[in-house]
């Protein structure tokens, strides 16, 4: 039987969120970010958010707009511009709290939440300043002895980093296609961690380039691309070009010119105010129209 119709708008999603929530954002750097949902958050009165992300302009915008209180990330980068300038500024002026984890740790934290276990063990992070600076991280001692090859001493109980589950109040991801109930298809070459984000969250929202009948999803790629099930989805938002200005392959590449323009807004308050008035203090349709004008 067809699943329920979960179509909604960006603003309806934001109405279901509240200040202080922990929100996970899919994609990777400046790739396949649910930017139309981020823009809706920027227009809202939400505040004090904890953001979990392989961060790109999503994190930069939320920091610059005073929406983020804390950012838990594996990195924050615009890819073609290695340092996200607004995140960099927020770190340097101390306006946010940061938890900077090893990239792989973030995957494990999301996986732990998705599997409903309190932590997952890893060697990644041991001995580094991740442990020193993120003082809430703990280690765990293996109950099984590790015996080194060639040794016959009964072994030792290895100490590993216990990556805590990243339990999310909400997850926001962008997919190339979905049906009305949230079965979703990623295209391109990397699913990123979107499927883990939606499973790690109480409520998950998929924005998508196009909403299609369920019968058409499997034909878009092979079945390995049907990575998100409607069971893990709360709402579906049809958002063509919704990942702009990040890339959403194969539908579109990153808008490098626009990204440069965005990055340059870190230079002064005036530059930011101007960008904000022109592109962010308007609704999504207005934004997309503006962007189209620029591309002519």
């Amino acid at each position, binding site marked *: 039987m067809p699943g329920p119709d979960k179509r909604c708008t960006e603003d309806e999603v934001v109405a279901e969120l509240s200040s202080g929530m922990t929100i996970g954002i899919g994609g*990777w750097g400046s790739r396949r970010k649910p930017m139309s949902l981020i823009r809706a958050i920027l227009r809202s009165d939400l505040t004090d958010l904890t953001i979990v992300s392989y961060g790109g302009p999503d994190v930069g915008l939320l920091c610059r707009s005073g929406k983020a209180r804390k950012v838990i*990330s*594996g*990195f*924050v*980068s615009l890819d073609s511009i*290695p*340092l996200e300038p607004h*995140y*960099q500024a927020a*770190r*340097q*002026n*101390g306006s946010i709290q940061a938890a*900077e*984890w*090893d*990239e*792989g*740790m973030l*995957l494990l934290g999301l996986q732990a939440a998705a599997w409903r276990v309190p932590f997952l063990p*890893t*060697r*990644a*992070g*041991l*001995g*580094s*300043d*991740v442990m*020193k*600076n993120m003082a809430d991280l703990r280690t765990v001692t293996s109950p099984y002895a*590790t015996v*080194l090859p060639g040794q016959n001493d009964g072994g*030792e109980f*290895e*100490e590993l980093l216990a990556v805590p589950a990243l339990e999310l109040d909400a997850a926001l991801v962008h997919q190339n296609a979905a049906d009305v109930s949230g079965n979703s298809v990623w295209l391109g*070459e*990397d*699913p*990123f*961690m979107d499927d883990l984000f939606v499973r790690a969250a109480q409520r998950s929202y998929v924005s998508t380039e196009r909403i299609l009948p369920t019968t058409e999803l499997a034909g878009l790629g092979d079945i390995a691309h049907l990575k998100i099930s409607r069971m893990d989805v709360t709402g579906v938002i049809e958002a063509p070009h919704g990942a702009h200005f990040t890339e959403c392959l194969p539908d579109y*590449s990153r808008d490098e010119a626009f990204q440069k323009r965005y990055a340059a807004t870190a230079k002064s308050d005036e530059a930011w105010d101007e960008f904000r008035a022109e592109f962010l203090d308007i609704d999504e349709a207005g934004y997309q129209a503006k962007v189209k004008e620029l591309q002519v």
Partner: protein
Amino acid sequence: MSDVSTPTPSSTAVTRADICAVAIAEAFRGDGERLCNPIGNLPLIGGRLAAATFEPYLALTDGFYTLMDPQSPDEVPPIALPEAERVAQRTVAHWNPYREMFGLLWQGKRHVMMGATQIDQYGNQNIAAIGDWTQPRRQLLGFRGAPGNTINHTTSYWVPNHSPRVFVPAVDVVCGIGYDRAHALGPIASRFHEVRRVVSNLAVFDFEARDAEGVPTMRLRSLHPGVTLEEVLEATGCDVVIPDDLGESRGPTDQELAQINRLDPRGLRLNEVPEP
């Protein structure tokens, strides 16, 4: 496999950048069937040079989501290709999205060469921030994958701008862990840790010296041709052991030089390491 000590050097003009490419390639010698994962232009040239010459079974990344097996040395793709060309010239052998890369590196069959904003005599590396991490004077890349890389598999570093600001007595933030940190973790936790080589625009370093407690520490391995020991010592702000038999970094063979020029037809390596 031991170093080939005296390959016939090319008689053609060789640049400092070519020397660096060969020194980087040498860092991957003996790796066999392992993922060669250099990051940055000159590391990519060097890693691909190794694959196209003396280390043919290395696995290579396309820089994104696949591992590629070029079917002959001349099919090892040049660096910095336009996107369509990059995709056209890769022979995809394996799908390797980010989550699989973590799986691969936690398993250990990988040798990464990363950059380092700061590095110390034990091979601790910083790419995260300058100053106190809590509110840094300058926020950099964050930890990225450096902690997980260094404790799980072989790591080398590339420093294009050798100076006392890079080679420091103690890094501000330990991202990639060095031998002192590994030693403190003990033999079980650190059993996969290896910092093999640091290649700079002036010289090559390894960690084949030992401090008073037996912990591996940075040793000068070779000077690039035309570089003096004094020059390196002046540019190095951390302790470094100078061996009695200090050698010179070798130049490329004719075959290697041809591959370097093919892998970097636009000469991007010269932007990174200009001629002195």
